[in-house]
């Protein structure tokens, strides 16, 4: 069980998030909604330790998480265009490979095979040697997902991973994300501006408004009106 308790983050005098508490189960996908500036990105960055929180705790089965336990899929992919899809995915496993392998570009066969499996898991069969800079938006996002999965995290976060994609491509990316989350038993938390895109795949909805959690419910109990309340002034 992934448990966040009373999480708080301030920037100077401004409170970005406060009193944020929730729990998520392995093999489930939660969707985080809220207006721009509500604190979604701040929350995800605190969970991934890219930002140091100012209060509260983050635990997995009661224990603190270490650096490799949480992976983040970035909005614009944050991939290296000049590298191949395989090389970008392999970057997700840097923490467990000796440094010299990255320096000389000579990864263990088991790592390469696992990275190719990740690409296949997101429907990128045959893309291993293709340069990321030549891929479409949806393909790049799926490479980002594969990279995050290659890190073998306990928790997979995604910060508006489909913001720049058309609805059909966005649904495909989310479907793949949900499938791998459930198959690999990780905890998925995805922030989205278009909650309807996640209707088919979300197990839970979390809603942030002005830095506070105003919605935390199973997806079956959430209707469009409840989500609209999160976005209300």
């Amino acid at each position, binding site marked *: 069980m992934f448990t966040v308790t009373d999480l708080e983050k301030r920037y100077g005098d401004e409170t970005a998030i406060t009193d944020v508490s929730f729990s998520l189960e392995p093999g489930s996908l939660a969707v985080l909604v809220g207006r721009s500036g509500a604190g979604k990105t701040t929350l995800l960055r605190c969970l991934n330790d890219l930002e140091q929180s100012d209060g509260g705790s983050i635990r997995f089965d009661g224990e603190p998480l270490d650096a490799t336990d949480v992976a983040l899929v970035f909005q614009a992919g944050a991939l290296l265009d000049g590298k191949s899809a395989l090389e970008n995915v392999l970057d997700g496993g840097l923490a467990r490979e000796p440094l010299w392998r990255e320096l000389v570009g000579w990864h263990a066969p088991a790592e390469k*095979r696992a990275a190719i499996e990740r690409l296949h898991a997101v429907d990128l069969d045959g893309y291993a040697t293709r340069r990321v800079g030549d891929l479409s938006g949806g393909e790049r996002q799926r490479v980002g997902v594969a990279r995050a999965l290659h890190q073998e995290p306990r928790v997979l976060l995604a910060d508006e991973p489909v913001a720049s994609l058309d609805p059909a491509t966005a649904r495909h990316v989310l479907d793949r994300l949900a499938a791998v989350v459930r198959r690999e038993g990780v905890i998925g938390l995805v922030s989205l501006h278009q909650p309807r895109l996640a209707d088919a795949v979300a197990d839970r909805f979390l809603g942030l408004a002005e830095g506070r959690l105003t919605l935390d419910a199973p997806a079956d109990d959430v209707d469009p009106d409840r989500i609209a309340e999160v976005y209300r002034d």
Partner: protein
Amino acid sequence: MTDSADERTDADRAESRGAATAANASEAKSRPGPRSKPTPDRGSDGDAAVGEEFDRVQAHLRRRLAIRIGAFAVALALVTGAARWIGLDVAYLYAHRENLRAVLLEEMLAPAELWAQLQADGPSLATATVETLAIATVGTAVGLPIAICLGILGASNVTPRLVHAPVRLLLGGVRAVPSMVYALLFVVLAGLGPVAGALAIAMGTVGDLGRLFADEMEEIDRAPVEAVASSGAGLLATTTAARLPQVTTAYVAWTLFYLEINARKSSVLGIVGAGGIGYPLFMSFNARNYTGVMAAVVAILVLVVSVELVANRLRDALDAERRADRG
């Protein structure tokens, strides 16, 4: 990919989520300690596909590695051959290390002698140092506007090939000539002294900064340029409004860096009569007065460090102004 989610009912969604959860719950990973690799749920066809792609990847990587090893071997052979041809002999250098040690420790770095030399040569060294700084500053200032113009004209995303290719060629030609040679030429034009040095520095600035400015211009984001150009603005207006703002920070950083480089370059141009601290340094060397050489080196060190400190302050001030503008 299909897009049918809009038409799914609540029941469909629940069924989809439930089925997926139930089907995969048994395959959820456990974490006993060291992480285990995931068990792919792909069946034999999926495993075969992964295997095939893995073999293709390995073949691709082997080819790439062979090319890289080959290229490295060729580079190593060329460098080794060149070193032998110029007579680089590490054993000889090691055998004569005592000569260098004696000059360094007994003459150049002997504290009492160095201090006495600095006191004796102080006034003349100070004048020569200020002259060196003036050469660097004037040379950079003269070369900079020309470098900016040629940098813009030499960018392939600004001008057509008929323009940017010859400009790049010109910049390469200007860069190919060492500053010493320009200094010798300009001594013929301007006579012995710092003017020749400043003109030599200007030429070097045009060649080096012009190339860097062109490279920076080619890396800009095309979208704002297209947005401005689509309003009907001409090349000059588009460059001013959409291209230059994207490279200003980089141009300023390069210019300040080149000011430091030019201060170093200027310090040796006096060897060919182009003014600055190079002349007293050269005269000391000719007279085998290594303490005098070291005194000149100390003056150059003070000059270069001072220029770097001023450049850093300027950069910090510009950064602070930019942050203040962002509000």
